[in-house]
Structures are given as structure tokens and as C-alpha cells.
């Protein structure tokens, strides 16, 4: 399940949606949060821009690829856009599977590829965030 939205999400509700009763033996969830990016200027907001249409397509492709690589029961990717403040939730990746190793690996894979391929851009205050080479390296290890 893919969602790109302005609204916040409820981790507990999403967790329950990942459970296939009797089948799920492992659930891994990852939540990314907005950190303080500018010391001294409290509550400066972050803007998250995306490419409507393409962003959803890329996320679906990442989800499908994860499902091909590991034995998964349910997958959830939620990414927020618009204006966010320090401490706000940005992204949720949730995976359920029979066994833990599939869920751990798939969740990490989805986040790593999302960070290097999904068209989202962060602007902190007046400054567009530069891409990090460490994020490309994290994605490259799955190739």
C-alpha cells in the first residue's frame, strides 16, 4: 500500500493493518522524523515537494521489487509532503512476513531505494537540501 499525503499518520493503526492474523510472524516498521536543522531558529519549517504521479509510480515499483526479493505478507509505504516541523513524522515503511529476516531486510531495502530514487525534495528554511553520497552508497549495496 502506497500513500503520499499531507496529513500525519498513526503508527499503531498502520501496524495493525500489517497483521495477517495467524500468518504474520514478524513486523518491522520504520518511521523517519524531521530533525532540528537550524540551531537557534526554533520551529523553522521544512517543505517537502514531490512529483505527483511519478512519485507514486516509483514507490509502487520499489514495493513490487521488495515483494519479489523477499517473502512478504503486507507492505506499507507512507510519505508526507508539504510543510513539516521539527519532530514531525515524514515517512513510514512497514513490512510483515512469516519470519523476521524477510521483514528486516525488506524494510531496509525499501528505505534505501526510496531515499535514492523516489522524487521527493526537502527544503529546510530557505535552503534546498543537497543529496548525500552516503544515501547512494546505501542504495548501491542492493544492486
Amino acid at each position, binding site marked *: 500500500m502506497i500513500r503520499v499525503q499531507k496529513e500525519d499518520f498513526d503508527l499503531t493503526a498502520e501496524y495493525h493493518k500489517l497483521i495477517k492474523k495467524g500468518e504474520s510472524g514478524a513486523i518491522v516498521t520504520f518511521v*523517519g522524523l524531521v530533525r532540528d536543522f537550524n540551531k537557534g531558529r526554533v520551529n523553522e519549517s521544512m517543505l*517537502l*515537494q*514531490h*512529483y505527483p*504521479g*511519478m512519485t507514486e*509510480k516509483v514507490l509502487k515499483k520499489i514495493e513490487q521489487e521488495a515483494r519479489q526479493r523477499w517473502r512478504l505478507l503486507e507492505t506499507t509505504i507512507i*510519505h508526507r509532503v508539504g510543510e513539516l516541523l521539527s519532530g514531525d513524522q*515524514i*515517512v513510514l515503511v512497514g513490512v510483515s512476513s512469516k519470519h523476521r529476516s524477510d521483514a528486516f531486510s525488506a524494510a531496509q531495502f525499501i*528505505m534505501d531505494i*526510496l*531515499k*535514492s*530514487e*523516489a*522524487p*521527493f*525534495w*526537502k*527544503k529546510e528554511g530557505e535552503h*534546498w*537540501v*543537497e*543529496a548525500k553520497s552516503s*544515501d547512494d552508497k546505501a542504495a548501491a549495496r542492493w544492486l
Partner: protein
Amino acid sequence: MSDINSIKVLYFASLGEEFGIAEEHLTIPRVPFHVSSLKKLLSARGEQWKNRLQASNILCAVNQEVQQGEDIQLNPGDEIAFFPPVTGG
């Protein structure tokens, strides 16, 4: 805005902000027209356009698929997007 020979061009993040435009429709000639032709056309608008579009890290998507080269041919109705490396998550 759009006519039968036009393409849609989108600029995201710092590109859209620096160019002062997020989206436009352009009429393309009735001769083979590629991503490289489009970049050349846009680069003629000034140094800022030229410098940003020729930068090696700028990505180009045609119909929402990222392109590796610039030799893909563009057709009327196509959607082309230029953007810097992504920074989500």
C-alpha cells in the same frame, strides 16, 4: 495553453525556484526533437538556465521515467521533467 504540437515541461525543487517557473507548455518543431534539443532550446534563455541544465547531477524524466542519456526523441503530448538529485525519506 497546450496545443497539438506541445510538450509539458516541469521543473522541481531548486530548479523551479531559480527559473521562476514550475511548469510550462512548449511547442516543438515537426522535425526529430530530442532531450538534447530541448536542453539546447532552454539553455538559450540565459546563463542560469544553461548552467543548471548542463550540470551533470541534473536528472531528466520523460513521461515519468528517468532517462540515462539525452537521445530519446520527444513527441507531442510528452511530459518532461528536470530535477536535482532526490532528498526524501
